[in-house]
């Protein structure tokens, strides 16, 4: 039971191929087939490999550029994105205005005003339980149109722009490794845009929480996520309070914090004196009997406490128990979101909501110390050897192989411990290791849908004027950006992405892209190999251009024979982008 699930070292064959291909061609290739192999084949293979992992796929000319600079120097430069100018990216993002807005500006411009929400609720009550979703959608649209003047745009625009920006950055940024690493951390600290107000919080989360810390100390990154409204909301910690605390005291404390008069929450405890939206869970309906259904007490919520250990730090086998989960949740009570009524959400610690008893976490006694308890927990988790190992393992899995060599993970974890969790040094350990460059690592990873789409756009030298259609394609392949509901994030291993429908979606995208049938994307397939003629020569020229890692002999042979049937450059390019080799990196 193996072949379908495991990615073996098949592309070890790809390595030895440089030579075997030349031999094969000498014997079997039709005259005129010109697959050129550079003289320094091994160095170029290393460059191609590095490009396939530190970037979202090589563009035409990238191999030559890295060769000219020197591979080591190029890797070092990518490890210091702040030293790369990246002048071409900003104009690409210029029209996506929400990217540069504060959360407060986003909420004021894109969160429907309360009157509109009330009218929508009223409409829903009118239509009754049997109203179809379609009717509701229509009603919502009509009502929203009346409020158009008061809003900068529909709520959906915020996440749409984030998705487009993610795609455009991955295609066009010169700080490629930075984009790869930010993608890694966004997935590691996943937040789901579909959960209520999180759609308005993700912009600042990526820009102000993840990006500034992506290359710093892991503990700082962990702390920044713990204090981010996006994470506090996503994993419910903002609602978690000492079960014996008096909710009125909590509301009073929050009002004081905000400099406003205390106010009863509109619905449920969720309010904390809510002004808009935050109090209502996603899609929650008015119950018509608020008094009867209103929560009368506060209480503990274990959601974040569990995930910070299982997913963010120690890993599921990191040696914690259910009791530890509860105790960590108690330490983190009072870590919540303030400023909601002013539409300016930010982290606050609310002592009135905190559980002031002593706790025991992972065998350590935690003396009652208010906010310092949570900070101590974050420090304890960030500096645990289990965390060093788990984070190093995940990074190695992303950069090297689905089952990364234990020797490499151990060395990366040692770097983690030695440098106090310096992410740059851990990544450097991985990217400069012999294991990283080992033949069995090359082409060992199956691309995720996002990696596949972006790498195809990069390889074909396409011009993207509107990334919307591309993000939709990624979603159709099972990876809607910013919309992974479970906190685990997207899987990073082959078996998650190898499926019939996934493959069909990839093949069709390859064909559509090469034929210029993806809206907002211009590709000149003919221009990719202007003087190649047709048939086998065209196939060879396009293959050399699109897949610097090389195609297998059998793929090349199929390609050449099908190209002989009079296929145009677009179809040949589509076949190459859909080939088994192009699904790997």
């Amino acid at each position, binding site marked *: 039971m193996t072949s*379908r699930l495991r990615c073996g070292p098949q592309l070890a064959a790809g390595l030895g191929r440089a030579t075997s291909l030349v031999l094969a061609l000498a014997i079997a290739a039709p005259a005129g087939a010109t697959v050129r192999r550079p003289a320094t084949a091994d160095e170029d293979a290393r460059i191609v490999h590095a490009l396939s992992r530190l970037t979202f796929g090589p563009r035409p000319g990238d191999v030559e550029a890295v060769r000219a600079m020197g591979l080591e120097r190029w890797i070092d430069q990518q490890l210091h994105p702040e030293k790369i100018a990246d002048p071409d990216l900003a104009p690409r993002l210029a029209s996506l205005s929400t990217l540069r807005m504060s959360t407060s500006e986003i909420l004021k411009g894109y969160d429907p005003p309360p009157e509109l929400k009330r009218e929508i609720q009223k409409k829903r009550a009118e239509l009754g339980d049997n109203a179809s979703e379609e009717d509701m959608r229509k009603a919502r649209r009509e009502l929203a149109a009346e409020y158009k003047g008061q809003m900068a745009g529909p709520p959906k625009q915020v996440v749409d722009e984030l998705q487009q920006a993610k795609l455009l950055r991955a295609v066009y940024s010169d700080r490629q490794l930075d984009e790869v690493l930010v993608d890694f951390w966004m997935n590691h600290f996943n937040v789901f845009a579909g959960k209520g107000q999180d759609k308005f919080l993700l912009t600042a989360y990526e820009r102000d929480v993840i990006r500034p810390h992506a290359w710093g100390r892991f503990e700082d990154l962990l702390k920044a996520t713990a204090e981010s409204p996006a994470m506090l909301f996503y994993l419910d910690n903002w609602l978690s309070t000492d079960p014996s605390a008096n909710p009125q005291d909590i509301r009073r404390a929050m009002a004081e914090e905000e400099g406003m008069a205390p106010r009863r929450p509109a619905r449920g405890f*969720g309010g904390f004196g809510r002004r808009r939206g935050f109090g209502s*869970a996603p899609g929650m309906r008015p119950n018509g009997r608020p008094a009867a259904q209103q*929560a009368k007490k506060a209480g503990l*919520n274990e959601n974040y406490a569990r995930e910070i250990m299982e997913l963010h730090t120690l890993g599921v086998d990191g040696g914690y128990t*259910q009791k530890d989960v509860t105790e960590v949740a108690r330490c983190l009570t009072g870590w919540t979101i303030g400023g909601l009524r002013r539409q300016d959400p930010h982290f606050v610690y609310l002592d009135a909501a905190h559980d002031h008893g002593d706790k025991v976490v992972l065998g350590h006694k935690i003396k009652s110390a208010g906010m310092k308890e949570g900070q101590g927990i974050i420090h304890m988790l960030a500096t645990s050897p289990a965390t060093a190992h788990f984070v190093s393992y995940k990074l190695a899995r992303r950069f090297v192989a689905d089952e990364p060599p234990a020797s490499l993970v151990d060395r990366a974890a040692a770097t983690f411990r030695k440098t106090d969790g310096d992410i740059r040094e851990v990544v450097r350990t991985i990217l400069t290791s012999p294991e990283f460059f080992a033949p069995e690592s090359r082409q060992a990873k199956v691309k995720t849908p996002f990696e596949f789409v972006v790498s195809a756009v990069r390889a074909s030298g396409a011009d993207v004027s509107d990334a919307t259609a591309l993000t939709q394609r990624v979603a159709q392949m099972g990876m809607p950006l910013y919309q992974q509901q479970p906190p685990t994030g997207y899987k990073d291993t082959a078996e998650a992405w190898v499926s019939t429908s996934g493959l*069909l979606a990839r093949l069709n995208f390859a064909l559509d892209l090469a034929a210029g049938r993806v809206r907002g994307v211009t590709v000149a397939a003919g221009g990719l190999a202007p003087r190649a003629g047709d048939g086998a020569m065209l196939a060879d020229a396009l293959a050399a251009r699109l897949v610097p890692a090389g195609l297998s002999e059998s793929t090349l042979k199929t390609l050449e024979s099908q190209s002989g049937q009079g296929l145009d450059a677009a179809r040949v390019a589509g076949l190459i982008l859909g080939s*088994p080799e192009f*699904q790997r990196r």
Partner: protein
Amino acid sequence: MVTRRFFLKSSGLALVAFGAAPKALVRSVYAAEGGRRKTLVVVFQRGAMDGLNVVAPYGDPIYRRYRPTIALPSPKGGSNEAALDLDGYFGLHPALEPLLPLWKDRTLAAVQAVGSPDPTRSHFDAQDFMESGTPGLKATEDGWINRHLQATPVADATPFRAVSLTPTLPRSLAGRAPAVAMNSIREFDLRPSAGASVAHGFEGMYEAAVNDVLHGTGQETFEAVQFLKKSDPSRYVPAADVEYPRGRYGDSLKQIAQLIKADVGVEVAFTEIGGWDTHAAEGGVQGQLAQRLRELGQALSAFQRDLGDRMQDVALVTMTEFGRTVHENGNRGTDHGHASVSFVMGGDVRGGKVHGRWPGLEERSLYEARDLAVTTDFRDLLGEMLTRHLGDRDLAKVFPGYAVSPSRFPGVMRA
């Protein structure tokens, strides 16, 4: 695999030789076997559904004490503001009202306190263990459904013997036996405009990539595309009065019904529905859980009416990775717990009954003093469905390391 490929190749020949319509060909294959195929449909509810508010033990006063703000009120003569009585002790969440007719005509059953013996409260691990069918064992490579396919090889299996209406192949179906994942029937095709040379090109490339993990997927994909084209399931539109709820989940059940009606040889179909992780604002009669249940119930009801007589050959089971805490938390929600509830529907089901031993809610009966205890191992439930519905006699292969015994079957299927 060899047999399967042989079948496909020879079916192509048969078409040429007899000029038979594809559907007739497919039917003839079943006729040889004695009629229509039995189908098992598996619905995975990801996120851990709170079974205690779905089939609620309203007859036990402790239930309400644990859940002062989210407990379902005891039944009030069929009112939708309260639980809907099932048997004088358990009540159905009112958002599942569309399922009540099925309960009454005994084609729907529930199994209370079902779950995995593994103590994990991690969504990821618990789903993984349930889908692999080996709680506690992370090294298992394939899923329980795939091992069932391996254990019961079928000479004339079609590419759609096991199909998942999901964008990626779920863990349950992963493994050596072929299985198809699809977003939708409509999208399951190569761009026709690309032409035959391109199609042959792709087939050739993936056929030759014998050492690649993508090789098998490629083969399965191209065979399945061809096969689906011939049987054209999109012809089978639901009757006018059958309305599936909008969204991915409703669509997926609608398309499973189409595949079944088109006789493409579906033995096991899989789909999933998320959003059950109700830590906050789960609510009682109204709330997040109610919303999810409305979608779940409407789609199951539509599926049953859509299939009509064909439900005689279909059994559907719902499963979720674990249940939720008996106590509500501070946010009108519940945290990760242990046992939950499964629904089973179909012609062979012993319906109108809450199956499974009820462990009770007294403090001493709870698992780790906080959660509903598991009294039916999920492997006994699935094992019963495989044995009694699909005729699988080799459960030791499906659930390695677990002695599935009919004596522990919950008894949801007619023997």
